[in-house]
Protein backbone atom coordinates (compact mmCIF):
# COMPACT_ATOMS: atom_id res chain seq x y z
CA UNK A 1 0.00 0.00 0.00
CA UNK A 2 1.33 3.40 -0.92
CA UNK A 3 0.47 6.08 1.59
CA UNK A 4 0.97 9.78 1.04
CA UNK A 5 1.00 12.23 3.91
CA UNK A 6 1.64 15.97 4.08
CA UNK A 7 3.40 18.32 6.47
CA UNK A 8 3.34 22.09 6.75
CA UNK A 9 6.06 24.16 8.37
CA UNK A 10 4.25 26.53 10.74
CA UNK A 11 5.21 29.10 13.33
CA UNK A 12 5.37 27.82 16.90
CA UNK A 13 1.75 27.95 18.09
CA UNK A 14 2.88 28.64 21.67
CA UNK A 15 4.50 31.97 20.88
CA UNK A 16 2.80 35.24 21.58
CA UNK A 17 1.55 36.47 18.21
CA UNK A 18 2.21 40.04 17.13
CA UNK A 19 0.77 41.54 13.97
CA UNK A 20 3.25 43.40 11.82
CA UNK A 21 3.18 47.15 11.30
CA UNK A 22 1.37 47.16 7.93
CA UNK A 23 -1.15 44.50 9.10
CA UNK A 24 -0.23 42.09 6.29
CA UNK A 25 0.82 39.23 8.53
CA UNK A 26 2.41 38.36 11.85
CA UNK A 27 5.90 39.25 13.00
CA UNK A 28 8.18 36.31 12.24
CA UNK A 29 11.54 37.64 13.50
CA UNK A 30 13.06 35.26 16.00
CA UNK A 31 10.11 32.91 15.70
CA UNK A 32 10.62 29.16 15.81
CA UNK A 33 9.08 26.95 13.18
CA UNK A 34 7.87 23.41 13.57
CA UNK A 35 5.69 20.76 12.00
CA UNK A 36 1.96 21.57 12.10
CA UNK A 37 0.70 19.53 15.03
CA UNK A 38 -2.27 18.06 13.13
CA UNK A 39 0.19 16.80 10.54
CA UNK A 40 1.98 14.84 13.26
CA UNK A 41 -1.21 12.81 13.59
CA UNK A 42 -1.36 12.37 9.84
CA UNK A 43 2.26 11.20 9.65
CA UNK A 44 1.77 8.85 12.59
CA UNK A 45 -1.34 7.33 10.98
CA UNK A 46 0.49 6.89 7.68
CA UNK A 47 3.28 5.03 9.47
CA UNK A 48 0.78 2.86 11.36
CA UNK A 49 -0.93 2.01 8.05
CA UNK A 50 2.42 0.95 6.65
CA UNK A 51 3.20 -1.09 9.75
CA UNK A 52 -0.12 -2.92 9.39
CA UNK A 53 -0.37 -3.26 5.62
CA UNK A 54 3.19 -2.90 4.35
CA UNK A 55 4.14 -0.53 1.54
CA UNK A 56 5.63 2.92 1.47
CA UNK A 57 5.05 6.29 3.13
CA UNK A 58 5.76 9.38 1.03
CA UNK A 59 5.68 12.72 2.83
CA UNK A 60 5.11 15.97 0.94
CA UNK A 61 5.51 19.58 1.96
CA UNK A 62 4.75 22.73 0.01
CA UNK A 63 6.82 25.57 1.38
CA UNK A 64 10.25 27.19 1.75
CA UNK A 65 13.53 25.28 1.48
CA UNK A 66 13.78 25.32 5.29
CA UNK A 67 10.80 22.93 5.36
CA UNK A 68 13.30 20.14 4.69
CA UNK A 69 13.61 20.11 8.49
CA UNK A 70 9.94 19.17 8.89
CA UNK A 71 10.31 16.55 6.14
CA UNK A 72 13.37 15.07 7.89
CA UNK A 73 11.39 14.97 11.11
CA UNK A 74 8.63 12.99 9.36
CA UNK A 75 11.25 10.64 7.92
CA UNK A 76 12.85 10.30 11.36
CA UNK A 77 9.43 9.22 12.63
CA UNK A 78 9.33 6.58 9.88
CA UNK A 79 8.30 7.99 6.49
CA UNK A 80 10.34 6.46 3.65
CA UNK A 81 10.96 9.41 1.37
CA UNK A 82 10.05 13.04 0.97
CA UNK A 83 9.07 15.54 -1.66
CA UNK A 84 9.45 19.28 -1.19
CA UNK A 85 7.55 21.53 -3.56
CA UNK A 86 9.60 24.59 -2.94
CA UNK A 87 8.10 28.06 -2.91
CA UNK A 88 8.68 31.18 -0.85
CA UNK A 89 5.23 32.53 -1.69
CA UNK A 90 2.44 32.37 0.85
CA UNK A 91 -0.03 30.05 -0.87
CA UNK A 92 -3.74 29.96 -0.23
CA UNK A 93 -5.37 26.59 0.46
CA UNK A 94 -6.60 26.31 -3.09
CA UNK A 95 -3.10 26.64 -4.54
CA UNK A 96 -1.75 24.12 -2.03
CA UNK A 97 -4.51 21.67 -3.00
CA UNK A 98 -3.75 22.06 -6.71
CA UNK A 99 -0.01 21.55 -6.11
CA UNK A 100 -0.69 18.46 -4.02
CA UNK A 101 -3.10 17.14 -6.65
CA UNK A 102 -0.30 17.23 -9.25
CA UNK A 103 2.12 15.43 -6.94
CA UNK A 104 -0.55 12.83 -6.24
CA UNK A 105 -1.28 12.27 -9.92
CA UNK A 106 2.39 11.39 -10.31
CA UNK A 107 2.75 9.34 -7.17
CA UNK A 108 -0.60 7.53 -7.39
CA UNK A 109 -0.91 6.67 -3.69
CA UNK A 110 -3.69 4.40 -2.40
CA UNK A 111 -4.58 6.84 0.33
CA UNK A 112 -3.74 10.39 1.43
CA UNK A 113 -3.70 11.11 5.17
CA UNK A 114 -3.20 14.73 6.17
CA UNK A 115 -3.84 17.03 9.14
CA UNK A 116 -7.34 18.48 9.26
CA UNK A 117 -5.95 22.01 9.33
CA UNK A 118 -2.77 23.98 9.92
CA UNK A 119 -2.39 25.62 13.31
CA UNK A 120 -1.03 28.85 11.81
CA UNK A 121 -3.86 29.91 9.50
CA UNK A 122 -6.48 27.42 10.77
CA UNK A 123 -8.28 27.42 7.42
CA UNK A 124 -9.25 23.75 7.30
CA UNK A 125 -9.64 23.62 3.51
CA UNK A 126 -6.70 21.94 1.82
CA UNK A 127 -7.88 18.34 2.33
CA UNK A 128 -11.39 19.03 1.12
CA UNK A 129 -10.21 21.01 -1.92
CA UNK A 130 -7.65 18.33 -2.73
CA UNK A 131 -10.29 15.59 -2.77
CA UNK A 132 -12.44 17.74 -5.04
CA UNK A 133 -9.58 18.41 -7.50
CA UNK A 134 -8.74 14.71 -7.61
CA UNK A 135 -12.40 13.74 -7.69
CA UNK A 136 -11.70 11.33 -4.82
CA UNK A 137 -13.90 10.58 -1.84
CA UNK A 138 -12.97 12.32 1.39
CA UNK A 139 -13.39 11.66 5.12
CA UNK A 140 -12.43 14.60 7.31
CA UNK A 141 -11.79 14.93 11.08
CA UNK A 142 -10.86 11.27 11.51
CA UNK A 143 -10.52 9.86 15.02
CA UNK A 144 -10.24 6.28 13.77
CA UNK A 145 -9.22 4.67 10.50
CA UNK A 146 -9.43 1.08 9.31
CA UNK A 147 -8.41 -0.02 5.84
CA UNK A 148 -9.52 -3.32 4.29
CA UNK A 149 -10.34 -4.63 0.81
CA UNK A 150 -9.91 -1.31 -0.93
CA UNK A 151 -12.16 0.60 1.47
CA UNK A 152 -11.45 2.85 4.43
CA UNK A 153 -13.77 3.00 7.42
CA UNK A 154 -13.35 6.32 9.14
CA UNK A 155 -14.73 7.39 12.51
CA UNK A 156 -15.27 11.14 12.36
CA UNK A 157 -15.62 13.93 14.89
CA UNK A 158 -18.72 15.89 13.93
CA UNK A 159 -20.76 18.59 15.61
CA UNK A 160 -22.63 17.00 18.46
CA UNK A 161 -20.89 13.61 18.37
CA UNK A 162 -19.27 11.17 16.01
CA UNK A 163 -20.17 9.48 12.75
CA UNK A 164 -18.73 6.65 10.70
CA UNK A 165 -18.08 6.90 7.01
CA UNK A 166 -16.91 4.29 4.52
CA UNK A 167 -14.99 5.56 1.51
CA UNK A 168 -13.58 3.69 -1.46
CA UNK A 169 -9.84 4.05 -1.98
CA UNK A 170 -8.08 6.05 -3.17
CA UNK A 171 -9.39 8.67 -0.80
CA UNK A 172 -8.34 11.70 1.23
CA UNK A 173 -8.55 11.39 5.02
CA UNK A 174 -7.85 14.31 7.37
CA UNK A 175 -6.70 13.65 10.92
CA UNK A 176 -8.16 14.94 14.16
CA UNK A 177 -6.52 14.84 17.57
CA UNK A 178 -7.90 11.57 18.91
CA UNK A 179 -6.71 9.57 15.91
CA UNK A 180 -3.49 8.37 17.55
CA UNK A 181 -0.55 9.34 19.75
CA UNK A 182 2.20 10.63 17.45
CA UNK A 183 5.54 9.02 18.18
CA UNK A 184 8.73 10.98 18.80
CA UNK A 185 11.44 10.93 16.18
CA UNK A 186 13.95 8.58 17.82
CA UNK A 187 17.69 9.16 17.54
CA UNK A 188 18.31 6.14 15.34
CA UNK A 189 15.39 7.41 13.27
CA UNK A 190 17.03 10.83 12.98
CA UNK A 191 20.28 9.27 11.80
CA UNK A 192 18.48 7.06 9.28
CA UNK A 193 16.44 9.98 7.95
CA UNK A 194 19.67 11.64 6.88
CA UNK A 195 20.07 9.02 4.17
CA UNK A 196 16.46 8.84 2.99
CA UNK A 197 15.69 10.46 -0.38
CA UNK A 198 14.28 13.97 -0.49
CA UNK A 199 13.23 15.26 -3.93
CA UNK A 200 12.77 18.92 -4.56
CA UNK A 201 10.61 20.50 -7.27
CA UNK A 202 8.73 23.76 -7.79
CA UNK A 203 5.08 24.56 -8.54
CA UNK A 204 6.33 25.56 -12.01
CA UNK A 205 7.78 22.10 -12.57
CA UNK A 206 4.33 20.74 -11.81
CA UNK A 207 2.66 23.28 -14.09
CA UNK A 208 0.64 24.85 -11.29
CA UNK A 209 -0.05 28.56 -11.17
CA UNK A 210 0.00 29.43 -7.48
CA UNK A 211 -1.17 33.03 -7.81
CA UNK A 212 -3.56 33.50 -4.88
CA UNK A 213 -7.31 33.47 -5.36
CA UNK A 214 -7.87 34.62 -1.82
CA UNK A 215 -6.60 38.06 -0.99
CA UNK A 216 -5.83 38.91 2.61
CA UNK A 217 -6.83 42.48 3.20
CA UNK A 218 -5.73 42.97 6.73
CA UNK A 219 -4.76 41.15 9.92
CA UNK A 220 -6.40 42.27 13.13
CA UNK A 221 -5.96 41.10 16.68
CA UNK A 222 -9.14 40.01 18.42
CA UNK A 223 -10.43 42.33 21.09
CA UNK A 224 -8.78 41.79 24.47
CA UNK A 225 -10.93 39.73 26.79
CA UNK A 226 -11.36 40.66 30.39
CA UNK A 227 -9.76 38.25 32.85
CA UNK A 228 -11.90 35.40 34.16
CA UNK A 229 -13.18 35.23 37.69
CA UNK A 230 -13.39 32.43 40.23
CA UNK A 231 -16.67 32.47 42.12
CA UNK A 232 -17.43 31.17 45.60
CA UNK A 233 -20.14 28.65 44.85
CA UNK A 234 -22.74 27.51 42.37
CA UNK A 235 -25.32 30.11 43.45
CA UNK A 236 -22.84 32.90 42.79
CA UNK A 237 -22.11 31.41 39.38
CA UNK A 238 -25.79 31.22 38.45
CA UNK A 239 -26.27 34.77 39.68
CA UNK A 240 -23.43 36.04 37.51
CA UNK A 241 -24.59 34.12 34.46
CA UNK A 242 -28.07 35.55 34.89
CA UNK A 243 -27.35 39.13 35.90
CA UNK A 244 -23.98 39.94 34.31
CA UNK A 245 -23.53 37.62 31.35
CA UNK A 246 -27.30 37.45 30.78
CA UNK A 247 -27.11 34.00 29.27
CA UNK A 248 -29.65 32.36 31.60
Amino acid sequence: MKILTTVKRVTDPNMKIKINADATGVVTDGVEYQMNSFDEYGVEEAIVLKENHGGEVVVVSVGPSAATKELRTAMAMGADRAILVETDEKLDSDAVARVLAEVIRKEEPDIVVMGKQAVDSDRNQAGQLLAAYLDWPQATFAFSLEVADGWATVGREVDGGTSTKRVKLPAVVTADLRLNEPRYASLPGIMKAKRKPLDTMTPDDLGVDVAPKVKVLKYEAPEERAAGEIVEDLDALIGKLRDEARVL
Partner: protein
Amino acid sequence: MSDLFNPTEEHQVLREMVRSFVEKEVAPQAEEFDKTEQFNRPLFNKLGELGLLGVTAQPEFGGSGMDAVAAVIVHEELSAADPGFCLAYLAHSMLFVNNLAVNGTDEQRARFLPGTCSGELVGGMCMSEPDAGTDVLGMGTVAVEDGDEYVLTGRKMWITNGAVSDTEMGDIFLVYAKTGSRDTREISLFLVEKGREGFSLGQKLHGKLGMRASTTAELVLEEVRVPRENLVGTPGKAVKSMMRNLAIERVTLAAMSLGIARRSVEIMNDYARERTSFGRPINVYGQIQRHIAESYAEFMAGRSYVYHVAGQLELDAFGHRVDSDGVKLYCSTMAKNVADRAIQVLGGYGYVSEYNVERLWRDAKLLEIGGGTIEAHQKNMTRDLAQLDKIR
Protein backbone atom coordinates in the same frame (compact mmCIF):
# COMPACT_ATOMS: atom_id res chain seq x y z
CA MET B 1 20.63 27.28 8.11
CA SER B 2 23.79 26.48 9.99
CA ASP B 3 23.94 27.98 13.45
CA LEU B 4 26.35 27.33 16.28
CA PHE B 5 23.73 25.70 18.51
CA ASN B 6 22.22 23.48 15.80
CA PRO B 7 25.02 22.91 13.31
CA THR B 8 23.07 20.42 11.20
CA GLU B 9 19.45 19.59 10.47
CA GLU B 10 19.83 16.39 12.55
CA HIS B 11 20.85 18.48 15.55
CA GLN B 12 17.84 20.70 15.03
CA VAL B 13 15.45 17.76 14.74
CA LEU B 14 17.06 16.20 17.82
CA ARG B 15 16.63 19.39 19.84
CA GLU B 16 12.97 19.69 18.86
CA MET B 17 12.30 16.06 19.67
CA VAL B 18 13.91 16.30 23.10
CA ARG B 19 12.24 19.63 23.81
CA SER B 20 8.77 18.32 23.07
CA PHE B 21 9.46 15.14 25.05
CA VAL B 22 10.66 17.30 27.95
CA GLU B 23 7.59 19.54 27.87
CA LYS B 24 5.19 16.62 27.84
CA GLU B 25 6.91 14.07 30.03
CA VAL B 26 9.85 15.47 31.99
CA ALA B 27 8.68 18.88 33.23
CA PRO B 28 5.46 17.62 34.85
CA GLN B 29 7.25 15.13 37.12
CA ALA B 30 10.26 17.20 38.18
CA GLU B 31 8.93 18.74 41.36
CA GLU B 32 7.63 15.48 42.78
CA PHE B 33 10.86 13.53 42.28
CA ASP B 34 12.85 16.39 43.77
CA LYS B 35 10.64 16.34 46.84
CA THR B 36 10.71 12.59 47.33
CA GLU B 37 14.40 12.17 46.39
CA GLN B 38 13.60 9.35 43.99
CA PHE B 39 14.98 8.30 40.63
CA ASN B 40 12.25 8.06 37.96
CA ARG B 41 13.10 4.73 36.40
CA PRO B 42 10.11 4.50 33.99
CA LEU B 43 11.00 7.92 32.57
CA PHE B 44 14.64 6.83 32.25
CA ASN B 45 13.51 3.80 30.22
CA LYS B 46 11.66 6.12 27.85
CA LEU B 47 14.99 7.83 27.13
CA GLY B 48 16.19 4.39 26.10
CA GLU B 49 13.29 3.95 23.68
CA LEU B 50 14.14 7.29 22.07
CA GLY B 51 17.78 6.26 21.62
CA LEU B 52 19.03 8.98 23.99
CA LEU B 53 20.82 6.73 26.48
CA GLY B 54 23.36 5.72 23.86
CA VAL B 55 23.51 9.09 22.13
CA THR B 56 27.24 8.84 21.36
CA ALA B 57 27.67 5.04 21.34
CA GLN B 58 28.22 3.00 18.19
CA PRO B 59 25.02 1.94 16.38
CA GLU B 60 26.27 -1.65 16.09
CA PHE B 61 26.06 -1.87 19.88
CA GLY B 62 22.67 -0.22 20.26
CA GLY B 63 23.85 3.38 20.33
CA SER B 64 22.84 6.30 18.17
CA GLY B 65 26.28 7.27 16.88
CA MET B 66 25.95 11.01 17.34
CA ASP B 67 28.58 13.56 18.32
CA ALA B 68 29.47 15.73 21.32
CA VAL B 69 27.20 18.56 20.12
CA ALA B 70 24.25 16.16 20.12
CA ALA B 71 25.11 15.12 23.68
CA VAL B 72 25.25 18.79 24.67
CA ILE B 73 21.84 19.46 23.11
CA VAL B 74 20.24 16.60 25.01
CA HIS B 75 21.73 17.75 28.32
CA GLU B 76 20.74 21.37 27.78
CA GLU B 77 17.16 20.43 26.98
CA LEU B 78 16.67 17.87 29.77
CA SER B 79 18.26 20.13 32.31
CA ALA B 80 16.02 23.05 31.38
CA ALA B 81 13.19 21.14 33.05
CA ASP B 82 14.82 18.68 35.45
CA PRO B 83 18.55 18.93 36.23
CA GLY B 84 18.35 16.14 38.82
CA PHE B 85 16.98 13.65 36.34
CA CYS B 86 19.49 14.92 33.79
CA LEU B 87 22.36 14.21 36.18
CA ALA B 88 21.27 10.57 36.39
CA TYR B 89 21.13 10.59 32.59
CA LEU B 90 24.64 12.06 32.41
CA ALA B 91 26.15 9.54 34.81
CA HIS B 92 24.65 6.72 32.77
CA SER B 93 25.09 7.92 29.20
CA MET B 94 28.35 9.84 29.48
CA LEU B 95 30.22 8.34 32.45
CA PHE B 96 29.28 4.76 31.71
CA VAL B 97 28.02 4.32 28.12
CA ASN B 98 30.28 6.82 26.37
CA ASN B 99 33.22 5.82 28.56
CA LEU B 100 32.90 2.17 27.59
CA ALA B 101 32.07 3.00 23.96
CA VAL B 102 35.35 4.93 23.70
CA ASN B 103 37.65 2.94 25.96
CA GLY B 104 36.31 -0.63 25.81
CA THR B 105 36.88 -3.48 23.38
CA ASP B 106 34.24 -4.72 20.96
CA GLU B 107 33.70 -7.71 23.17
CA GLN B 108 33.04 -5.47 26.19
CA ARG B 109 30.82 -3.17 24.16
CA ALA B 110 28.80 -6.13 22.94
CA ARG B 111 28.36 -7.34 26.52
CA PHE B 112 27.23 -4.11 28.11
CA LEU B 113 26.19 -1.47 25.60
CA PRO B 114 22.95 -2.97 24.24
CA GLY B 115 21.52 -3.29 27.78
CA THR B 116 22.63 0.15 28.88
CA CYS B 117 21.55 1.84 25.64
CA SER B 118 18.05 0.37 25.96
CA GLY B 119 17.72 1.25 29.64
CA GLU B 120 17.42 -2.31 30.82
CA LEU B 121 20.58 -1.73 32.88
CA VAL B 122 21.44 1.43 34.83
CA GLY B 123 25.12 2.31 34.81
CA GLY B 124 27.49 4.64 36.64
CA MET B 125 31.15 5.50 37.15
CA CYS B 126 33.13 5.19 40.39
CA MET B 127 36.10 7.46 40.76
CA SER B 128 35.64 9.45 43.98
CA GLU B 129 36.14 8.01 47.43
CA PRO B 130 35.34 9.12 50.97
CA ASP B 131 38.92 10.37 51.33
CA ALA B 132 39.84 11.26 47.76
CA GLY B 133 37.93 13.61 45.49
CA THR B 134 39.90 16.38 43.83
CA ASP B 135 43.05 14.42 44.59
CA VAL B 136 41.77 11.53 42.55
CA LEU B 137 45.18 9.91 42.18
CA GLY B 138 45.19 9.56 45.94
CA MET B 139 42.45 6.95 45.71
CA GLY B 140 42.75 3.97 48.04
CA THR B 141 40.78 1.34 46.15
CA VAL B 142 43.13 -1.38 44.94
CA ALA B 143 42.87 -4.20 42.43
CA VAL B 144 45.24 -7.10 42.89
CA GLU B 145 45.91 -9.55 40.08
CA ASP B 146 45.21 -13.16 41.01
CA GLY B 147 45.54 -15.63 38.16
CA ASP B 148 42.90 -14.74 35.60
CA GLU B 149 41.12 -12.46 37.99
CA TYR B 150 41.47 -9.13 39.73
CA VAL B 151 40.43 -8.67 43.33
CA LEU B 152 39.07 -5.21 44.14
CA THR B 153 38.89 -3.70 47.60
CA GLY B 154 37.88 -0.20 48.61
CA ARG B 155 35.03 2.27 49.02
CA LYS B 156 33.58 4.54 46.39
CA MET B 157 31.68 7.65 47.40
CA TRP B 158 29.21 10.05 45.75
CA ILE B 159 28.31 7.61 43.01
CA THR B 160 25.46 8.87 40.87
CA ASN B 161 23.15 5.94 39.96
CA GLY B 162 24.92 3.95 42.67
CA ALA B 163 21.39 3.10 43.77
CA VAL B 164 18.17 2.87 41.78
CA SER B 165 15.95 2.87 44.88
CA ASP B 166 16.49 3.23 48.62
CA THR B 167 17.73 -0.33 48.91
CA GLU B 168 18.76 -1.54 45.49
CA MET B 169 22.06 -0.72 43.80
CA GLY B 170 22.57 0.19 40.14
CA ASP B 171 23.40 -2.55 37.65
CA ILE B 172 26.81 -1.91 36.18
CA PHE B 173 29.76 0.33 37.00
CA LEU B 174 33.07 1.44 35.63
CA VAL B 175 35.37 1.43 38.65
CA TYR B 176 38.82 3.02 38.86
CA ALA B 177 41.31 1.25 41.13
CA LYS B 178 45.05 1.23 41.72
CA THR B 179 46.91 -1.68 40.26
CA GLY B 180 50.35 -0.49 41.31
CA SER B 181 51.51 0.55 44.74
CA ARG B 182 49.39 3.14 46.50
CA ASP B 183 51.63 6.09 45.69
CA THR B 184 51.86 5.61 41.93
CA ARG B 185 49.69 6.82 39.07
CA GLU B 186 49.05 3.23 38.05
CA ILE B 187 45.30 3.18 37.87
CA SER B 188 43.19 0.66 35.97
CA LEU B 189 39.57 0.62 34.95
CA PHE B 190 37.20 -2.29 35.64
CA LEU B 191 33.66 -3.27 34.79
CA VAL B 192 31.94 -4.39 37.97
CA GLU B 193 28.40 -5.78 37.84
CA LYS B 194 25.81 -5.77 40.57
CA GLY B 195 25.60 -9.21 42.12
CA ARG B 196 29.34 -9.90 42.31
CA GLU B 197 30.18 -11.23 45.72
CA GLY B 198 31.48 -8.50 48.01
CA PHE B 199 30.05 -5.63 45.92
CA SER B 200 27.36 -3.83 47.88
CA LEU B 201 25.41 -0.66 48.46
CA GLY B 202 27.04 1.00 51.46
CA GLN B 203 24.40 3.72 51.72
CA LYS B 204 22.11 5.77 49.58
CA LEU B 205 22.76 9.36 50.58
CA HIS B 206 19.82 11.42 51.76
CA GLY B 207 19.34 15.11 52.32
CA LYS B 208 21.12 16.47 49.26
CA LEU B 209 20.68 20.21 48.66
CA GLY B 210 19.82 19.66 45.01
CA MET B 211 19.94 17.10 42.21
CA ARG B 212 17.57 15.12 44.36
CA ALA B 213 15.99 13.27 41.43
CA SER B 214 19.31 11.49 40.93
CA THR B 215 20.58 9.01 43.47
CA THR B 216 23.97 9.36 45.09
CA ALA B 217 25.43 6.39 46.90
CA GLU B 218 28.42 4.90 48.59
CA LEU B 219 29.44 1.57 47.11
CA VAL B 220 31.61 -0.90 48.95
CA LEU B 221 34.03 -3.38 47.37
CA GLU B 222 35.17 -6.18 49.66
CA GLU B 223 37.49 -8.50 47.80
CA VAL B 224 35.31 -8.40 44.72
CA ARG B 225 36.60 -10.80 42.08
CA VAL B 226 36.21 -9.86 38.43
CA PRO B 227 37.59 -11.79 35.44
CA ARG B 228 40.33 -10.31 33.28
CA GLU B 229 37.69 -9.67 30.58
CA ASN B 230 36.33 -6.95 32.86
CA LEU B 231 39.56 -4.94 32.69
CA VAL B 232 39.02 -1.96 30.38
CA GLY B 233 42.08 -0.76 28.49
CA THR B 234 45.73 -1.28 29.37
CA PRO B 235 46.41 -2.12 33.03
CA GLY B 236 47.92 0.81 34.89
CA LYS B 237 47.12 3.28 32.12
CA ALA B 238 43.56 4.26 32.93
CA VAL B 239 44.44 7.85 33.80
CA LYS B 240 44.38 8.48 30.08
CA SER B 241 40.88 7.11 29.59
CA MET B 242 39.81 8.94 32.73
CA MET B 243 40.99 12.27 31.29
CA ARG B 244 39.36 11.54 27.96
CA ASN B 245 36.01 10.86 29.59
CA LEU B 246 36.33 13.82 31.96
CA ALA B 247 36.38 16.12 28.93
CA ILE B 248 32.91 15.10 27.71
CA GLU B 249 31.68 14.89 31.30
CA ARG B 250 32.63 18.50 31.93
CA VAL B 251 31.25 19.75 28.65
CA THR B 252 27.90 18.05 29.30
CA LEU B 253 27.84 19.30 32.89
CA ALA B 254 28.36 22.77 31.42
CA ALA B 255 25.47 22.02 29.04
CA MET B 256 23.33 21.25 32.09
CA SER B 257 24.22 24.69 33.43
CA LEU B 258 22.95 26.15 30.16
CA GLY B 259 19.58 24.46 30.61
CA ILE B 260 19.29 25.84 34.13
CA ALA B 261 20.30 29.34 33.04
CA ARG B 262 18.00 29.38 30.02
CA ARG B 263 15.01 28.33 32.06
CA SER B 264 15.82 30.86 34.76
CA VAL B 265 16.07 33.68 32.23
CA GLU B 266 12.75 32.65 30.68
CA ILE B 267 11.04 32.55 34.05
CA MET B 268 12.33 35.91 35.27
CA ASN B 269 11.65 37.57 31.92
CA ASP B 270 8.08 36.29 31.88
CA TYR B 271 7.43 37.23 35.45
CA ALA B 272 8.94 40.70 35.20
CA ARG B 273 6.65 41.77 32.39
CA GLU B 274 3.50 40.55 34.16
CA ARG B 275 4.21 41.52 37.74
CA THR B 276 3.39 45.11 38.61
CA SER B 277 4.68 47.19 41.45
CA PHE B 278 3.94 50.88 42.01
CA GLY B 279 1.55 50.55 39.08
CA ARG B 280 4.11 49.47 36.51
CA PRO B 281 5.51 46.15 35.33
CA ILE B 282 8.70 45.54 37.29
CA ASN B 283 10.75 45.15 34.10
CA VAL B 284 10.72 48.94 33.69
CA TYR B 285 12.89 49.27 36.77
CA GLY B 286 16.62 49.48 36.18
CA GLN B 287 17.63 47.05 38.89
CA ILE B 288 15.35 44.39 37.44
CA GLN B 289 16.57 45.17 33.93
CA ARG B 290 20.09 44.58 35.10
CA HIS B 291 19.19 41.15 36.47
CA ILE B 292 17.50 40.13 33.25
CA ALA B 293 19.89 41.63 30.72
CA GLU B 294 23.07 40.49 32.45
CA SER B 295 21.66 37.02 32.90
CA TYR B 296 20.78 36.72 29.26
CA ALA B 297 24.16 38.01 28.09
CA GLU B 298 26.05 35.67 30.43
CA PHE B 299 23.89 32.75 29.36
CA MET B 300 24.54 33.44 25.69
CA ALA B 301 28.27 33.86 26.30
CA GLY B 302 28.35 30.52 28.10
CA ARG B 303 26.22 28.88 25.49
CA SER B 304 28.46 30.05 22.68
CA TYR B 305 31.55 28.82 24.54
CA VAL B 306 30.03 25.39 25.23
CA TYR B 307 28.82 24.77 21.67
CA HIS B 308 32.08 26.04 20.25
CA VAL B 309 34.07 23.62 22.40
CA ALA B 310 31.65 20.73 21.81
CA GLY B 311 31.91 21.32 18.06
CA GLN B 312 35.66 20.68 18.27
CA LEU B 313 35.54 17.84 20.75
CA GLU B 314 36.37 14.48 19.33
CA LEU B 315 35.17 11.88 21.73
CA ASP B 316 38.15 9.59 21.33
CA ALA B 317 40.91 12.22 21.40
CA PHE B 318 42.80 14.18 24.06
CA GLY B 319 43.95 17.70 24.51
CA HIS B 320 40.82 19.72 25.20
CA ARG B 321 41.50 20.20 28.82
CA VAL B 322 41.78 23.95 29.07
CA ASP B 323 38.42 24.45 27.43
CA SER B 324 36.53 21.47 28.80
CA ASP B 325 37.50 22.72 32.25
CA GLY B 326 36.88 26.28 31.06
CA VAL B 327 33.29 25.78 29.97
CA LYS B 328 32.38 24.14 33.23
CA LEU B 329 34.23 26.73 35.30
CA TYR B 330 32.37 29.54 33.60
CA CYS B 331 28.94 27.99 33.13
CA SER B 332 28.47 26.39 36.55
CA THR B 333 28.87 29.67 38.41
CA MET B 334 27.01 31.54 35.68
CA ALA B 335 23.98 29.24 36.06
CA LYS B 336 24.02 29.55 39.82
CA ASN B 337 24.11 33.34 39.56
CA VAL B 338 21.37 33.44 36.95
CA ALA B 339 19.11 31.18 39.02
CA ASP B 340 19.85 33.39 42.00
CA ARG B 341 18.80 36.49 40.08
CA ALA B 342 15.66 34.72 38.94
CA ILE B 343 14.73 34.14 42.59
CA GLN B 344 15.46 37.80 43.30
CA VAL B 345 13.30 39.02 40.43
CA LEU B 346 10.40 36.85 41.62
CA GLY B 347 10.73 38.03 45.20
CA GLY B 348 8.80 35.82 47.64
CA TYR B 349 7.38 33.80 44.77
CA GLY B 350 10.91 32.88 43.77
CA TYR B 351 11.57 31.39 47.16
CA VAL B 352 8.86 28.74 46.95
CA SER B 353 8.68 25.69 44.72
CA GLU B 354 5.79 26.76 42.48
CA TYR B 355 7.97 28.77 40.11
CA ASN B 356 10.80 26.20 39.98
CA VAL B 357 13.65 28.68 40.31
CA GLU B 358 14.47 27.69 43.87
CA ARG B 359 14.95 24.12 42.65
CA LEU B 360 17.08 25.26 39.72
CA TRP B 361 19.22 27.28 42.13
CA ARG B 362 19.73 24.31 44.43
CA ASP B 363 20.56 22.08 41.48
CA ALA B 364 22.93 24.64 39.98
CA LYS B 365 25.17 24.58 43.04
CA LEU B 366 26.19 20.97 42.44
CA LEU B 367 27.76 21.90 39.14
CA GLU B 368 30.44 23.88 41.00
CA ILE B 369 31.40 20.65 42.81
CA GLY B 370 30.62 17.46 40.85
CA GLY B 371 32.80 16.44 37.91
CA GLY B 372 35.55 18.58 39.42
CA THR B 373 35.25 21.55 41.76
CA ILE B 374 35.69 25.02 40.31
CA GLU B 375 38.96 25.21 42.23
CA ALA B 376 40.10 22.03 40.47
CA HIS B 377 39.28 23.62 37.10
CA GLN B 378 41.24 26.73 38.05
CA LYS B 379 44.19 24.56 39.04
CA ASN B 380 44.10 22.42 35.89
CA MET B 381 43.62 25.34 33.56
CA THR B 382 46.35 27.45 35.03
CA ARG B 383 48.79 24.57 34.87
CA ASP B 384 47.99 24.03 31.19
CA LEU B 385 47.90 27.72 30.36
CA ALA B 386 51.34 28.14 31.91
CA GLN B 387 52.65 26.09 28.97
CA LEU B 388 51.35 28.68 26.51
CA ASP B 389 52.93 31.90 25.31
CA LYS B 390 50.14 33.04 23.06
CA ILE B 391 46.49 32.26 22.77
CA ARG B 392 45.49 31.26 19.28
